[in-house]
């Protein structure tokens, strides 16, 4: 969901029209939509319960990065083929088997998954932690932020397959909340 708001009388050099990625859907108890407004007033931190923190740390401490990362990225490229637009130089992506066996996909999948480590280590300031990466994805890579959600859905499915019945509803809620916060942070610097 994207909303564009007119920001008038900003005490800065900013352009009046600012595109903002809205609707961080927090998949936990409150389930309220949280809206990102202007930067000076947007200081509300994401609150994590002890269970959520412990769950995220636990999942990543047991993570098999070289299995899950490649599987998640490959799945994304297969299930949502339009995401292949960002990987024109990755060689053979012609079918599911080619994608799953592609070494560049595997390497990049691992890289992306390790990219989540910094969020795990800085859960109280994910927004600032990803500011640079957000600029990179916007200015250099030109990735549509909707793709972040697609990849995080695929990552959820792969982790679910790994954990089986241990991936309870509560664990899923915590994991999806974590990914939603990361996705929001990555989309933050787009303009």
């Amino acid at each position, binding site marked *: 969901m994207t909303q564009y708001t007119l920001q008038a009388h900003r005490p800065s050099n900013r352009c009046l029209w600012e595109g903002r990625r809205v609707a961080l859907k927090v*998949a*936990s*108890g*409150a*389930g309220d939509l949280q809206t990102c407004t202007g930067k000076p007033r947007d200081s509300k931190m994401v609150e994590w319960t002890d269970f959520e923190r412990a769950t995220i740390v636990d999942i990543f401490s047991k993570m098999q990065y070289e299995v899950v990362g490649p599987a998640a990225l*490959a*799945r994304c490229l*297969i*299930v949502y083929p339009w995401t292949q637009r960002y990987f024109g130089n990755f060689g053979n992506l012609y079918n*599911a088997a080619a*994608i*799953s066996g592609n070494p560049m996909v595997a390497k990049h999948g691992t890289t992306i998954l390790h990219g989540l480590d910094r969020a795990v280590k800085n859960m109280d300031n994910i927004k600032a932690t990803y500011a640079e990466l957000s600029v990179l994805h916007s200015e250099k890579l030109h990735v549509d932020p909707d793709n972040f959600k697609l990849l995080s*859905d695929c990552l*959820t*499915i*792969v982790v*679910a*397959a*790994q*954990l*089986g*019945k241990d*991936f*309870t*509803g*509560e664990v*899923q*809620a915590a994991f*999806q909340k974590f990914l939603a916060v990361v996705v929001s942070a990555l989309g933050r610097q787009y303009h």
Partner: protein
Amino acid sequence: MSLNSKDKAAVKALWGKIAKSADVIGSEALSRMLVVYPQTKTYFAHWPDLSPGSEFIKVQGKNVMGGLGLAVSKIDDLTTGLMELSEKHAFTLRVDPSNFKVLSHCILVELATIFPKEFTPEEHLSYDKFFAAVARALSEKYR
């Protein structure tokens, strides 16, 4: 993004396995949805016990999977095949169609936990398309 013959074959292939544990999958997916997306509880406010394993969840889960089984059998013409269910969701239940996506996601997650090997990326692709097609058919009568 309509279903091609490959998708239909993939859906039917895995459905054979799913049908054997349909009741469990349905109630687990529903419980999962109520926990991960608490706003969906608003549709069940008239029912006191929404805890996992409750009678209500079991019955509802069975209903949902029954509906999906019907959809599999009518996969060649979902709009016609699901017309009655569409009317029910549109006029009686009045479920916001965005929730179809949410429940679909929870069923996909449940399938991944129960069938980690069989739920390959190709199966995932076909089921994602299938659930989207079912959601479209269910939304048909809304307006």
